[in-house]
């Protein structure tokens, strides 16, 4: 198995698996939403989905296109204003797991979603910007980053630091007063990277079935280190695939 639909599915399923022990989860649109809703169907029916639009405890039957879709509000335990969401619930430390994606990610799991250089003579390519990401990364108990593996995405140097992961290394989060543990895993379509506790540098800890370590290295923009033992992701179970399909076709 290489980059492609198989890897993408394992990225989604792995992200859902990572939510097995979470009580509350801050959800963005796209893959995070798929993973969180899949986790609710598979193994964590009590998982509380929180959307930055002010939704606490959404129980959507199908995947929303936007974080403000009507069904999220209609199925919520309660709705709060956006300022309250960010102050009392996110900054208040009420969310166990946050999901983020990235246009660029560096080896310390810092994130750029603001702009990317496009070479001499061209203006930087504009991206959407920060949204909720900087404070999700700061305040959630832990953060899972999901993105497709490519040397353009996992880069040596960010063109802009939108969201702090582990800064320049251990101690930076504490120095900046951040209370959550920060990014604990980067789940891609090739495997999983986790920060080395000693250096806070992302190392390869897991490859998806059929993916070689060399393949992951080639798809990474910095000289990727690997854990002493690189595990192979358990292949999707029948149930996982069925529920994922059901979710996507609902």
């Amino acid at each position, binding site marked *: 198995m290489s980059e492609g639909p198989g890897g993408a599915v394992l990225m989604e399923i792995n992200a859902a698996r990572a939510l097995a022990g979470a009580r509350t989860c801050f959800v963005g649109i796209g893959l995070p939403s798929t993973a969180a809703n899949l986790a609710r169907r598979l193994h964590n029916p009590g998982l509380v989905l929180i959307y930055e639009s002010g939704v606490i405890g959404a129980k959507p039957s199908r995947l929303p296109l*936007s974080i403000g879709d009507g069904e999220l509000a209609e199925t919520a335990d309660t709705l709060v204003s956006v300022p309250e*969401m960010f*102050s009392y619930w996110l900054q208040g430390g009420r969310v166990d797991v946050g999901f983020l994606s990235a246009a660029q990610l560096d080896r310390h799991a810092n994130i750029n979603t603001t702009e990317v250089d496009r070479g001499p003579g061209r203006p930087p390519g*504009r991206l*959407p*910007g*920060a949204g909720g990401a900087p*404070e999700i990364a700061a305040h959630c108990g832990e953060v899972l980053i999901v993105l497709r593996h490519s040397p353009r995405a996992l880069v040596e140097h960010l063109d802009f630091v939108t*969201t702090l992961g582990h*800064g320049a290394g251990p101690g930076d989060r504490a120095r900046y007063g951040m209370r959550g543990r920060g990014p604990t895993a980067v789940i891609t379509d090739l495997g999983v990277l986790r920060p080395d506790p000693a250096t806070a540098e992302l190392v390869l800890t897991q490859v998806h079935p059929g993916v070689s370590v060399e393949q992951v290295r080639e798809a990474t923009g910095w000289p990727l280190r690997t854990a002493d033992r690189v595990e192979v992701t358990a292949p999707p179970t029948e149930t996982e695939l069925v529920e994922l399909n059901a979710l996507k076709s609902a």
Partner: protein
Amino acid sequence: MAEIRGLRDAVADLIHDGDTVAMEGFTHLIPFAAGHEVIRQGITDLTLIRMTPDVIYDQLIGAGLARKLVFSWGGNPGVGSLHRFRDAVENGWPRPLELDEHSHAGMANRYTAGASRMPFALLRGYRGTGHDRRTTTVSTVNCPFTGEELAAVAAVNPDVTVIHAQQADLEGNVQLWGLAGVQKEAVLAADRVLVTVEELVRELEPRPGAVVLPGWVVDAVAVVPGGAHPSYAAGYSERDNDYYREWDRVSRDREVFCQWLKECVTG
């Protein structure tokens, strides 16, 4: 007390060239009809404030009416880029667009400070990121009790805030429900307030989760059924997700966009 009036007159009276304007709505209740009226009237040199400048601001920017954008996330939710926004930022077309860029938490706090008539608000945020080097509206303060360094963000106080709501009564009291976003704060932070509503009712019937804005904090109410389309008004309409997807195609090309502008707005 809010006056019930036509959208055209209300926009002409309340929004002027050079104003700082917030049109809020977090996916839900976005005041598209009012935005299109601004385009029709050619009100220009605007500083636009909005946490999520989505398609409505893409249209205003593409029409060349904005000189500056104050925001925290500029995308087409669930679809992709805002191409008119990108074209303005990357290529200065149809005119350069100055940016004051924040995180959502920062913007939410800026509105809260504005509504509270405080010059700034505090949050834990921004530290270690590149934002503070690009804007003059982020700074730091130290807690006088613990010494801890915290982020400070300057208040926003729009000249005009425009929102869409489900209902108003004859005295201009406004009720909105469902996702309420940052609308209350945006209204209370502003000098002038225009609310478009789905319908006028004899009496507002209290609803779970509703935000009620007394008529005396609103300048004008305009009845514009469907005024949030392609966004939606809970209880009245559904989000037109196809429109958002189609916008990707329309907005990608300057000529197609200009054609759309003529056909669908300025007519």
